C-alpha cells in the first residue's frame, strides 16, 4: 500500500529505536509495566520508568521486580485484574520466563511484551539473533517480527489491539532485533496519542479479578477438559490470522503506514527466486533485490511478520509461482540442522499442490554481520538449485572453517 511520505517527513524525529517503542507503549495507556532490565532491552524500560517518574503515564504502576520470572508473574495478576499490562525482555530473561509464558497464554491474558531479540548463552553473547523468541514458539503467544524501528513502534499498538480482541485474547510477543533496531537512531514518527486512543479502545475484559465479585482464575483442569483448553487456544490462534491482518489495515487507515499483515512481499509477482526472512534482515534483502533486479535476476522478498500464528496459507500463495524459495533463519533447531522458518515452511507445503524446492540458510548467529555480498552468494546457490536441484538442503552461512 502507498504511504504518504510527504506529510510524514514533517512529523519525523530522530530517536533511538528503544525510545520509539517506549513512547509507543506510553501512548497505548498501559496500567501496569513490570520488567527487569537486560541488555539490549534496557533502554526501553529505562525510558518507560522515566516517563512514569515524570508523570507522563497516568494511572499506571511500574513494578520493580527481582527477576524476569517475577516480571511476567506479576503481569499474570495485573492482567487478570483488568489492567493493560506490558513488559519487555530478551534472551536469558525471556528463557527464564518460559514457564510463566504458558500460564499467561493458557489463562488467555492479553499481555504485550517486546522482545529485543538476542542470542542465548552459552557462550554468552549479547548481540542479535532470534533464537530467544523462536524458542518460545509453543508457549501459545502470538509472535510478530518488525523490520525497522518505525514498524517496531507501530507494532506495539497493533499488538495490544490484536491481543485484546475478544475473539483472540492471547498474549503477544512483539519482536525487534537487538541493537540493529533497539539502539539505532533513525527518523521515526512517534505515535499520535489521539489517534492511538481512536485505534485502541480501553481494555475491558469479560472477566476481572475483583474481590467484590470473586472468581477463580487459573484453576485445575483434569483429563476430562484439558484437551479442550488446548483446542480453544488453537482456535484463537486461527482467528488471530484475520485479526492481525485487520489490525494492520485499520492502522493504515488511521496512520497511513502499512508493513503487511501476516506477511509482506516485495517484487515476488514474477520472481524465480524468493528469499524469505523475519526482522531487520528484510531491509538488507530489499537492497539486494533492487541490485540484482537491476542486473536482470528475477528475485523477490517474502517478509514474514507473524511467526505465530504461522501464516501457512499466505506463504503458500506468495511463493507458489517461484522456482526456488530460500528461507533465512537467525536461529537453529540443534539436532535438525534447520532454522524454524525453513522447517515450518517446508512442512506446511508438504501436503499441498505447491511443490517448489526450498533451501535454508542459518545466518547472523550471535550478531554476525550479514553483508549484501553474503546474500548475493546465497542467491547464487539458489540459482544452482533451479538448474540442477538441491544438493545441500540447509546449512550455516559464512562458516569460518579456520576456527574449527
Amino acid at each position, binding site marked *: 500500500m502507498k504511504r504518504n511520505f510527504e506529510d510524514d517527513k514533517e512529523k519525523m524525529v530522530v530517536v533511538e529505536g528503544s525510545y520509539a517503542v517506549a513512547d509507543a507503549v506510553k501512548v497505548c495507556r498501559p496500567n501496569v509495566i513490570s520488567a527487569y532490565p537486560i541488555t539490549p532491552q534496557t533502554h526501553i524500560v529505562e525510558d518507560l520508568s522515566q516517563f512514569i517518574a515524570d508523570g507522563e503515564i497516568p494511572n499506571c504502576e511500574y513494578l520493580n521486580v527481582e527477576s524476569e520470572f517475577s516480571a511476567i508473574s506479576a503481569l499474570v495478576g495485573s492482567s487478570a485484574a483488568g489492567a493493560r499490562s506490558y513488559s519487555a525482555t530478551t534472551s536469558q530473561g525471556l528463557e527464564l520466563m518460559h514457564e510463566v509464558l504458558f500460564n499467561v497464554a493458557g489463562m488467555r491474558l492479553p499481555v504485550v511484551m517486546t522482545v529485543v531479540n538476542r542470542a542465548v548463552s552459552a557462550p554468552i553473547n549479547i548481540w542479535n539473533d532470534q533464537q530467544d523468541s523462536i524458542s518460545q514458539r509453543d508457549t501459545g503467544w502470538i509472535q510478530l517480527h518488525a523490520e525497522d524501528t518505525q514498524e517496531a513502534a507501530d507494532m506495539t499498538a497493533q499488538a495490544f489491539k490484536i491481543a485484546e480482541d475478544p475473539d483472540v485474547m492471547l498474549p503477544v510477543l512483539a519482536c525487534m532485533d537487538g541493537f540493529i533496531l533497539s539502539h539505532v537512531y533513525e527518523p521515526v514518527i512517534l505515535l499520535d496519542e489521539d489517534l492511538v486512543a481512536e485505534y485502541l479502545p480501553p481494555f475491558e475484559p469479560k472477566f476481572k479479578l475483583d474481590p467484590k465479585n470473586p472468581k*477463580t482464575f487459573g*484453576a485445575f483442569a483434569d483429563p476430562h477438559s484439558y484437551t479442550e483448553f488446548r483446542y480453544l487456544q488453537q482456535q484463537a490462534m486461527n482467528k488471530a490470522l484475520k485479526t492481525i491482518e485487520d489490525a494492520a489495515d485499520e492502522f493504515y487507515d488511521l496512520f497511513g503506514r502499512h508493513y503487511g499483515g501476516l506477511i509482506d512481499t516485495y517484487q515476488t509477482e514474477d520472481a524465480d527466486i524468493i528469499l524469505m526472512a523475519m526482522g531487520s534482515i528484510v531491509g538488507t534483502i530489499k537492497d539486494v533485490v533492487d541490485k540484482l533486479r537491476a542486473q536482470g535476476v528475477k528475485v523477490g522478498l517474502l517478509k514474514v511478520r507473524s511467526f505465530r500464528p504461522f501464516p501457512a496459507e499466505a506463504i503458500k500463495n506468495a511463493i507458489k509461482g517461484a522456482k526456488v524459495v530460500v528461507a533465512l533463519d537467525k536461529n537453529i533447531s540443534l539436532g535438525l540442522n534447520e532454522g524454524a522458518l525453513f522447517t515450518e515452511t517446508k512442512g506446511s507445503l508438504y501436503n499441498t499442490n505447491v511443490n517448489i524446492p526450498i533451501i535454508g540458510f542459518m545466518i547472523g548467529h550471535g550478531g554476525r554481520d550479514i553483508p549484501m555480498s553474503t546474500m548475493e552468494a546465497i542467491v547464487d546457490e539458489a540459482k544452482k538449485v533451479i538448474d540442477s536441484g538441491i544438493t545441500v538442503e540447509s546449512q550455516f552461512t559464512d562458516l569460518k572453517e579456520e576456527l574449527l
Partner: protein
Amino acid sequence: MTITLGGVCEPGSTLVNKTGGWRTFRPVFDYDKCIKCKLCELLCPDMSVDARDDGFFEFNYDFCKGCGICANECPTDAIEMVLEEK
C-alpha cells in the same frame, strides 16, 4: 458446562473434587485431651478442620488428605493419625 475464556469460574469449584480418597492416615481427635486451642484449624492447609458449636473441632474427611500437620502441631497430642483400612 462449557469452558469459559481461560477457564475462569465461580470460586469454590474444587468442592466437587473430593480429595479425601488420597489419604493414607486419618486424623482422629481425642476430645479428652483437646484444649480448644484452634491450632489444628489454623494450620490445616486444606481447610478440612471445621469448628463445632461446642468449641471443639471435627475433621471433614471429604477433603482431608491426611498430611498430619494438625497431629504434629497439636500441643496436647490430642490428634492421632490412624492407618486407613478397609
